[in-house]
Every structure is written in C-alpha cells, then in structure tokens.
C-alpha cells in the first residue's frame, strides 16, 4: 500500500496527489512515470512523476479523472492509500543545454511537461512556456512554471484567460521571430496538438521532443501493447520512451491505437454478455 499524504484539486477533475513511495522517489529522474492501481479491481494507469522529494520519500502525481479507474485514484483522500505504485518507468528525459527552449503544454499535458521543464531550466536553458487549455479553469501550473521560466504564455480556446486560440498560434509567433525563436521544442498534450507542433517545427529543423501516452499495461516491455512507430520502426513507449523525436513519430497510428477501447457502435469491447 502506498499512502496518499495530500490531495489537492488543481482544476475541474484534475488533482495533485502526494504519495509516499520512497524507492520510486529515490530512483526517479525527470521524464519518468509510474503505473498506479487504486485497488484490486482497478486498471493499471500510467502517470508521469510530476515531482519527487527523495528525502521525504514522496512523489507527486497529477491525475485527470477520465474513466472509473482514474476517478477512483483522484477520489483517494489524504490518509487513504493506493494499492500499487510501480516505477520509475521509462527513459529519463535527455537533458542538454539547448539555449532557448519552447515548452508547449496542452491540457493535462502541462502536468507531464512540468518536470521536464524544471529539469531543462536547471540545466541552464532559457524557457518559454506555452500553456494551452480549453478555458481559464483548466489552465494549470502557470505559477509553478513561472518560477523557473523566462516567460509563460497562456492561451485558451475561449479566450477566458490569456490569448484566445491554440498553442500553435504562440509557437508560430516564436518560429517567425515575432517572439524569441527557440533552439528546441518540447511538446506534451493531446495527439493532434503534438502532431501539429511537429509539423510546425519540421520545416525549421528545430529539434522537437514529444512525450507519448499510448495504452500501457505492465510498463516493462513485456506486453507490446504500448507499441508506436518511430521512424518506421516499432518501439515500446514504456521502455524506449515515453519521449521521442517528434519528427519521427507516426501520430496517426498512435491516435488510432488510443481509440482501441473507446466505445464503438458495434460494441466490440466486452462489457460482458452484450459484447460480441
């Protein structure tokens, strides 16, 4: 059992949990994730380690409640516990001094971006963070990111906070030189957003990294369920990633595989007898 020490609501259905997991906290590097299972029945849910305190033996997870399993996780109060937390999994972020780095976060992707951004800043990079969200309540971590960034741009689809539009609009201004031009780009968010960013930076030959979120089970390279095509080669995101060169990623394939368990008209996934 892994004790939840704190549970804070960041945005509607978006929680930040502080969890006691000393071995994970001690081993963890930026870019890595854990797999969490709330209880005996729950699914294994991959979650980025947003932050860790090796001294205190704790990690922080930012969790969006989407389905029943994630709802159970965010519903765990301080003093409650998660049955399973395993990690740190995946490769750590490749850190180097690029110079000016644009960090683009869309929705809950901003939570995945946060530890990367922090590590990049510590490495001496000058950060320009773009946070995109549906509307003001969904803008997360702006203050935390501002602590180590040169500039934080907020953009919402309905214009309720910051500029109105999509993250790609801000990035376009950076690429055209209206805003400072980046030497590297890190983007985490919904697949269409990451695909769009990749297309934006490709003609400029700017190194661009994305963190992928395919469906996973074990997280140790055992099942192959998390497979993605990178430069035409099959890779397992849980062990070879989750970060990859955005210009090599087959986003279409990724988007398709993410749909595998979404309800379809002919009801292929079996909840029981009505399944085929």
């Amino acid at each position, binding site marked *: 059992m892994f004790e939840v020490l704190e549970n804070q609501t960041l945005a509607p259905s978006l929680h930040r949990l502080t969890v006691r997991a000393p071995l994970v906290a001690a081993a963890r590097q930026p870019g890595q994730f854990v797999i969490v299972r709330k209880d005996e029945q729950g699914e294994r849910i991959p979650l980025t380690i947003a932050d860790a305190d090796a001294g205190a033996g704790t990690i922080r997870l930012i969790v969006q409640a989407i389905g029943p399993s994630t709802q159970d996780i965010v519903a765990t109060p301080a003093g409650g516990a998660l049955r399973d937390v395993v990690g740190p*999994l995946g490769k750590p972020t490749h850190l180097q001094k690029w110079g000016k780095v644009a960090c683009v976060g869309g929705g809950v992707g901003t939570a995945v971006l946060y530890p990367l951004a922090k590590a990049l800043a510590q490495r001496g990079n000058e950060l320009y963070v773009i946070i995109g969200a549906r509307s003001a309540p969904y803008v997360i971590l702006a203050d935390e990111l501002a602590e180590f960034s040169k500039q934080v741009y907020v953009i919402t689809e309905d214009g309720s906070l910051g500029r109105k539009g999509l993250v790609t609009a801000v990035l376009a201004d950076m690429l055209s030189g209206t805003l400072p031009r980046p030497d590297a780009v890190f983007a985490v968010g919904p697949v269409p957003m990451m695909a769009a960013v990749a297309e934006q930076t490709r003609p400029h030959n700017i190194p661009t990294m994305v963190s992928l979120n395919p469906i996973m*089970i074990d997280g140790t390279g055992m099942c192959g369920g998390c*497979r993605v095509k990178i430069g035409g080669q099959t890779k397992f995101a849980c062990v070879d990633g989750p970060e990859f060169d955005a210009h090599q990623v087959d986003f279409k394939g990724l988007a398709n595989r993410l*749909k595998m368990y979404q309800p379809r008209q002919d009801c292929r996934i*079996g909840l029981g007898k009505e399944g085929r």
Partner: protein
Amino acid sequence: MANKLTPKDRLAIERVHMPEQDSSQRAANFSEVNLGLAEAAAIREAQRCLQCKNRKCVEGCPVRVDIPEFIAKVAQGDFAGAAEILQRRNVLPAVCGRVCPQETQCELVCVRGLKGSPVAIGHLERFVADWAMTHQNGQIIAPAAATGFKVAVVGAGPGGLTCAGELARLGHQVTVFEALHDPGGVLRYGIPEFRLPKRIVDYEVGNLVKLGVNIQCNVVVGKTITLEQIRRQFDACFVANGAGLPVFLKISGEDYNGVYSANEFLTRVNLMAAWKEGPGRTPIIRGRNVVVIGGGNVAMDAVRTARRLGAQHAMIFYRRTEAEMPARVEEIKHAKQEGVEFHLLESPLEIFGSDDGWVSGMKFQRMQLGEPDASGRRRPVPIPGSEHTVECDVVVVAVGAQANPLLTGSAPDLEVNKWGYIEVGPDGATSIPGIYAGGDIVRGSATVILAMGDGKTAAEAIDGYLRKLRDKG
C-alpha cells in the same frame, strides 16, 4: 491392502481418466477444466505403480520428486505421508500437478508405459497437493535455524519462488522482488484460470510467506532498484526474471486495433481479470472470429481464452502439422473438444485493416513439409499460388518470446549471450560472483518445472557459496 497386490493385479488395473468439466459447458466459462481425482480413484491409480527399484520416473523429473515413495503412500491411503514426501522435493506441487508436461518427463519413462499406459503421476501429484490444500494448514516442512544470511531473488515466477522456498528452508532470509503487482510470473499473467486457478497460485505463494519469504511486489529491478544495490544489500542473489519480451511477426498490419501479442492478450485476461465484468476493469476485445498464430502452450491458452470470451470461430493457424506442435497433448485435445478450429500448414503473410483502423482479415499461404531442418523437424515450404484470406476481428500473435533486456541492460557486468539470455555455469552461477540465474532468462522459453529445477540447483549452489563466505569470514 495395497501390499497384498501382486504385480499381475497391478498390471490388470487400467489407467484412470481425469474427470473433466463438460466441453460444451466449459467453452463458455473460466472454471477449471480438470476436476481432479476422487480418493478411491487415486488409490486405485497408485496401485498401478510397480515400485521399481531403478526409479526411472524420478530420473525423468527435473526436481527429482520421490515418485514411487509418494505413490506408495497414496496406495496405502496415507495422503498426509504422501504430501510430506512430495513437498520435500517440490515447493509448488499443486502447480506442477496441473501444468507440467508429464508425458515428456516422468510418465515418458515410466516402466508401465513400455507396455500400455504409464502411471498417471501428474494426476496423483495434483491429487496429493489438493488433498494437502484442503486438509492441512499449508507448509509442513519447518525451516532450519536462521543463518543470518540475506538473499535476494529477482522475479516471483516458478524459478524465483522455488529458489526462495529452498533457501528459506535452509534458514536464509529471502526477499523476492517482483515487477508486477502480484507474484507468480507466468503462473499469474500467462496461464489461464481454467488451467491453473489463481487461488492455487495464491495458496502456494502463501506457503512460502509462511516459511518466512518476504515478497515485495511493484519493484522493477533495473528501474526501482539496481542489481548493484542488491549486491550491496544482500549476500547473494538469484535472477529469474523470465523471458518477457513479445515477438511479433513483422508483417504489415500488426498495429491495427484488435491485434495483440499473446502476452498482452493473456495479461489482460489473467493478471487483470478482464474476463470478469464490471466498470473500471481492464478491457479486452471480444472477437467473433479470432485468429491465433502459433502452436505452443501459449497459443493454446490464447485460443481457448478467446473461445471463452465468446468467439464463434476461435482458430489456430500454424506453419507445420499437429505432430510438430510444441503444445502439450492435453492442451491440444482440450482445445479441440472446446470447438477450436485447427488450420495447419498455414503461414501468415499480411494483416488487413478497415479504414477505421481495425483488423479485418489476414492473408495466409499454405505450406507443405519439406526436408528436415537443423532441429530435425521437417521444414515447411510454401506452396506457390496458395495465398488466401481469412476474415477475422481479433488476431493474437503467439510465436514465442525473447529475453527482456530491461534488467540485463542495466547491469553491464552480467554476461549475456547474443540473444540476450544470461550465461551461467551448471550450478547457475553468472559472471558476477554471488549472482545466480535460471529459468526462462537462461533457457529461453522453457517450462515451469525446468525453471523450478534451476531455482533448486541455484539454491543449493547459493547455500554452498554462503557457507564458504562464513568459513572465510
């Protein structure tokens, strides 16, 4: 009474049949297929044993169970005595009685098999283990006095669990590190409920815990902790992390939705219990027409699982003939009884998908058997012009597994061969002093009992290594 039987009486008894759940019923549920022998049937089967002096059967057993001795106790109706003898050599008897390929081991060499049917050693083993499970309170063999040595075991599969049990009996303090959230290895995530109920795995693991073995799940060695850390904190280590890396066909279309590796398909159904219904459970695609590629135990488990998930056509496609299938005879027989369709001499060429990204069919080519290859098996050669397509909505690829590099890649001093399997000496010693290895990570995909045999051999070697340490220090 048993003693009064003459050899002739014994020879006259016919081999027992394992009672089974009816095949039409069981194709729709996940309850165990084999129901186990009744007491009278077990005693009668035990009376078939000739109590040979040269104990051929024992030689056929990788962990050297004292087969005639435990069978003699069964014949006398002394089941507790039989259980004691069985447990002395085998820390997971209820598992072995269910999944060991006895027909290629002890029963293959059983003297009674020379003329007629061998003694049903596997059924008797299962009978005794199950009897002990319901009539006794677990472990009956007490551990030796504590030695003060600490040993780590990586992986809670049959290899690791056996080594842990043997070391604990010898008085060492054992910690098992397991990557998944429950122990058992393939017994947990691979072999389905209908062949090996998970309560059996729980029970056998519970016995090890009673022996004092500390099992820590959710620890991935190479990620959560390193082998180097283990070396610093423990006096010795046994690595049995299995061969958990799926092999794909490398044909086009393998990324369509509905295409699974056998590992993923079986892990969803077994470890995550996707066959049980309810919100928040791990999902699984229930196909109507399911193609399973392969001919081993894994393929049989996958196809029989697909059938139970509701497939109208649960189909095996295999490149060679039934004679070459590596699966256990019993699994093939059970699969057929349950309505699984066997398509032999068929080689996969391509997976087709629909515009919405789902698998819709496969292209196969028919084969014929040609000259024997290096392994002595006749090599399948394609028949030109025999390409044809098969409609399907789920594909499961069960063509083998390879060494998972996660642990070995994080320990550069640990010598591996060119396929990534750990190199060991006859006693399981690796290139690093104090670190031993066994099971599938050494042999490639093998069997439960061979992994257990390795665990046992390594436990003896580790015990010797620790004694030397103590004598030196």
